[in-house]
């Protein structure tokens, strides 16, 4: 290592991880959309996508009742006979974790994820954010979705960003961590790639990097998903450490989800085509996935009111 100090090394972060050409990567991901997924491949893709959903409600008006109904949908997204799997997790605010745990019980494969760390802005003292993480884990959260300190990142204080992530890792204990980069605020693909590496270097195998809070204008896109998948691939091939990925926000249709999965298949390969390594942060997506599965089964296009309501936060 050439750098004389860890701080100096971080200053060279961008040189080290390399750049991304915006037009080139957007042309690349446009090709994923031309993949034609039919028949058995479509059913496999739709079911896999269901199993990857972090079914989410993140609203000021969330109540224990709303969370309980969300949990029911997570456990059984549709008629049992359709063979739709359970979703990966429910995702709620920290105050709702205990209600989710109550609704799901302790003997369930559906996990509880919670957006801690002063979500979505992250603008609270570190001490407060860490306390929130610990409280959510104590209430039964299996997974913590944190936000990075975008202000520090854009100010070039990479050390601070990374130290905070490391502190949250510790606070998580056994809980899985998902690091939200909030890509729309990082703005460029170069920043997204650099921030991905910053996080991956201090999180654990199986922890996630995640695109967005869903609370800003632009959320997950095929472009920023691709930048992060490529970062995960390069980091894995370099270190052997598999990092998981979660695009969140803006993925509303089954067709979109399948296109994201094509990106996973062609960038990271088969080992990432499962819900340990890939998730969708979404709410309305689930209904469309189920609807398309029903259509594949019956051959008839389905009216939306055949499917139970889902939370509409994002």
């Amino acid at each position: 290592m050439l750098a004389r100090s860890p701080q100096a090394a971080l200053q060279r972060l961008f040189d080290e991880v390399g750049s991304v050409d915006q037009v080139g990567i957007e042309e690349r991901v446009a090709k994923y959309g031309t993949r034609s997924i039919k028949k058995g491949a479509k059913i496999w893709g739709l079911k896999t996508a269901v199993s990857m959903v972090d079914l989410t409600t993140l609203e000021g008006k969330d109540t224990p009742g709303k969370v309980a109904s969300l949990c029911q949908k997570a456990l059984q997204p549709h008629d049992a006979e359709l063979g739709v799997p359970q979703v990966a997790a429910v995702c709620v605010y920290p105050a709702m974790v205990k209600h989710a745990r109550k609704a799901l019980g302790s003997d369930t494969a559906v996990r509880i994820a919670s957006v801690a760390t002063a979500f979505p802005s992250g603008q609270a003292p570190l001490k407060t954010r860490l306390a929130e993480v610990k409280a959510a884990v104590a209430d039964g959260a299996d997974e913590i979705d944190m936000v990075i300190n975008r202000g520090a990142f854009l100010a070039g204080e990479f050390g601070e960003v990374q130290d905070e992530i490391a502190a949250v890792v510790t606070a998580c204990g056994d809980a899985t961590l998902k690091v939200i980069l909030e890509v729309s605020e990082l703005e460029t693909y170069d920043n997204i790639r650099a921030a991905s590496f910053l996080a991956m270097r201090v999180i654990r195998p199986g922890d996630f990097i995640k695109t967005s809070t869903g609370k800003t204008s632009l959320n997950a896109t095929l472009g920023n998903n691709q930048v992060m998948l490529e970062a995960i691939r390069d980091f894995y091939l370099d270190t052997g450490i598999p990092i998981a990925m979660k695009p969140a926000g803006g993925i509303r249709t089954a067709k979109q989800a399948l296109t994201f999965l094509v990106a996973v298949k062609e960038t990271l390969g088969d080992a990432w085509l499962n819900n340990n390594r890939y998730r969708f942060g979404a709410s309305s997506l689930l209904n469309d996935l189920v609807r398309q599965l029903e259509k594949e089964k019956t051959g008839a296009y389905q009216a939306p009111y055949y499917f139970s309501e889902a939370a509409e936060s994002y």
Partner: protein
Amino acid sequence: MPRLPITKTPKVYVGGAFIRSESARVFPLKDASGEFFANIPQCTRKDLRNAVEAAAKAGPGWAKRTAYNRGQILYRLGEMIEARAGEMADAITLGGATPAAAAREVAATVDRLIYYAGWTDKYEQVLGNVNPVAAPYFNFTVTEPMGIIGVIAPDASPLLALISLIAPAITSGNTVVALASTTQPYPAIVLGEMLATSDLPGGVVNLLTGFRKEMISTFATHTHLRAISAVVNAEERKALALGAADSVKRTHLLKAEEKHDWFADTAQSVYAIRDTLEFKTTWHPVGA
């Protein structure tokens, strides 16, 4: 006894130096009244080869000059000829032109150089393009000189025609190997002396004298010559085009059997510059 004048030994101007043919051959040149005037170098294929090498050496540096600088050098060449217009006119009258016609040809030659001197930093703006492609790319087409251009000058208007073929080529940064009129080579000999006192780097323009039939096949087949601008007869056109095919050489062949008015405005054009240009289109994404 009157003083015997010192006569000049005509030499060709190649690579910035005055040389005799490597073959040591010469042919006698007579003046309009049929009197022996001087021996002219009878250049060979090897002289042509050497001239191409000189042009190749000079090419990159010439092409890299700024357009402004090339313009000033062409202008300077005009100044040099203007200042020695009388001497040049004498060289033309040697072939039978009247003094008035010769003076007119010299003046037109100077004007032609001034015309092209002014183009050096403008043709790109007329001939190049920015292309509005239907994708997020900045796309532009610029010109580049082709490289070494072979010129074969006609016998009529031996100075003006020669310059009319050479000037558009060097305007853009090409270098030239030119074969002067066989019947009236002397203006090219004098031109070499004026080139030498202009600021034109040696090797940018190389002037040969001699016989077409001895050199035309080498002009045709030398693969380092990237284009030929010539005024030639049907047989020569065919020979040049056949040889050009071997290396996909560009040819701009005017018919010797047609009359060309080298004094006309149409004898000078930005499209003559274009004839010895390549067009290069560059794409680059527009993104952040």
